[in-house]
């Protein structure tokens, strides 16, 4: 067997994990019908070959429900992480380039980070009236501070870099500076930050749905599945909680792994390892 070097191994992992995540995300809409199908002749089956994740008290196939839930999580995670990252980019850049905005943004970051995260997501979800809009807004509007701080720090550091100062003294226009110096430096960082936002977004979406502020019960969301399973734990139906939760952890780990690999591949400091 050929032994890969680190870079190749990272690339292979990156490709495989992305393919798996993409497949899960795409299969959700296809499985929606199957996930909602109830059949009382097969209710409460423990895991078997036909139903690897078992069935619930309405005879729904837990594998289909889990996959549909994960797909929803990934799509929602993509949407919220995207919005969050854009907010972080705007605020971080504004804070770095404009002194007056810096104070305001710093205070806003302190404010958002001063409230325990779940509470904040809960409050924002309430303001949007719970449901799909609530979760999306809650997760999207509460995840930007960390990335905004990173972006602000990077730009501030970049502005002190010799090549940037030289370009400034040579009278290069702002647009050109942005295009030639700022963007090439910031884009990789931004993408890595974006991907690393995913796992947090997915976890918080599941948590808030679990608490009952998120997606409506008829949606096969992981948080909902786990919250429903709580009532059946004492009856010994362990598969209702174990497999969906495990699958969620797996997806989160894959995202974290993809982000980490991406960082290693893009970061100039570790690219040649």
């Amino acid at each position: 067997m050929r032994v890969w070097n680190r870079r190749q191994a990272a690339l292979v992992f990156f490709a495989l994990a992305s393919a798996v995540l993409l497949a899960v995300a795409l299969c959700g809409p296809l499985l929606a019908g199957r996930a909602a199908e109830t059949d009382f002749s097969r209710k409460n089956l423990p895991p078997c070959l036909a139903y690897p994740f078992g069935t619930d008290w309405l005879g729904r196939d837990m594998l289909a429900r889990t996959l549909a839930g994960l797909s929803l999580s990934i799509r929602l995670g993509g949407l919220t992480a995207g919005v969050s990252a854009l907010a972080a980019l705007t605020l971080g850049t504004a804070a770095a380039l404009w002194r007056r905005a810096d104070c305001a943004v710093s205070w806003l970051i302190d404010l958002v980070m001063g409230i325990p995260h779940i509470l904040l997501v809960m409050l924002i979800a309430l303001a949007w009236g719970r449901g799909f809009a609530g979760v999306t807004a809650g997760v999207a509007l509460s995840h930007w501070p960390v990335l905004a701080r990173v972006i602000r720090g990077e730009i501030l550091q970049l502005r002190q870099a010799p090549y940037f100062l030289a370009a400034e003294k040579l009278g290069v226009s702002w647009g050109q500076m942005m295009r030639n110096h700022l963007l090439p430096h910031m884009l990789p960082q931004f993408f890595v930050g974006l991907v690393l936002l995913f796992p947090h977004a997915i976890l918080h979406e599941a948590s808030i749905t679990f608490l009952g502020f998120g997606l409506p019960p008829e949606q096969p969301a992981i948080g909902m599945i786990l919250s429903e399973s709580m009532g059946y734990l004492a009856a010994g139906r362990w598969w209702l909680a174990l497999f969906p939760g495990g699958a969620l952890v797996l997806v989160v780990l894959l995202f974290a792994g993809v982000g980490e690999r991406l960082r290693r591949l893009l970061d100039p400091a570790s690219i040649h390892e």
Partner: protein
Amino acid sequence: MGGWIPWIGKKLLRGTLLLLGVSVVTFTLMTCSPLDPVQANVGQAALGSMSGEQLDRLEAHWGKNTPPVQRYLSWLSDFVRGDMGISLRYRQPVRQVMGQRLANSLWLLAAAWVLSGLLGGALGVIAGACRGRLPDRLIRGICLALSSTPGFWLGLLLVLIFGVWLRVLPVGFSAPIGAESAGITLLQRLRHGILPAAALSLTGAADIALHTREKMADVMESYFIRFALARGASIPAAVLRHGLRNVALPGLTLQFACLGELLGGSVLVEQVFSYPGMGQAAVAAGLGSDLPLLMAITVVSAALVFGGNLTADVLCGLVDPRIRRGGILP
């Protein structure tokens, strides 16, 4: 140390402004909410049997028609005087509800805080000292998996294992069901607190361990450790004598800064275990659009988080003279 008082004063002023901001944000978000507190807190049957006049009186009593700014100001003026209002959900003064809930939660939080710090610190130091070898890989793998695990699922698993399969620990609540509150012994309380505290501290410990490991690995690469090893010190001795002190400081900061995460986690864990703490009250208040209670919970948790960060800053200055002289602190 003449610079201390102005420094603390400035910090406290910032904190007060921050708390004010938190309360404004909470109030605004709750006011924007399209959910109707009257509908959420009066049962459907009662709502149907109420006459329009009664409904109007109730709405007026709950201040539905008062402008938001006026409502906020009256809340604020009462709050600073110590009157937090009356909870719509529990129909008791918020202060009383908060007192009970906070007392329950504090035990859980304190236990999880200490446990996660000790466990996370120890694991992080071990992993960092053996970086690249088997113990490190093992610890790092477990911690990565744990930190990607939602706290509530961990709680569910613990219930499943210890409550349902092994039947050694209770599955929920802070005391046996149906027991009189006077008759509950400390042992019973402890037994009911084990699983929630474990669930809460495991997720916290994972993050702390991963951070400590990074620091420890850096320290192990340093010249002073290399010199100590070259001089013939064994690895454990070098770690104990030189390594620990250097990871203690970031560890301390992290330990106080993670209070927010811990509070957030307690909301989820208390929900799983039906533990009657502040987190569960927050969920109940949120679902019932109970503005006074939710405001109090948010402001109190924000104050706790701020207190944690402030303590971390002060301790850093006390422990490390470099930071003090560096001008960050007086």
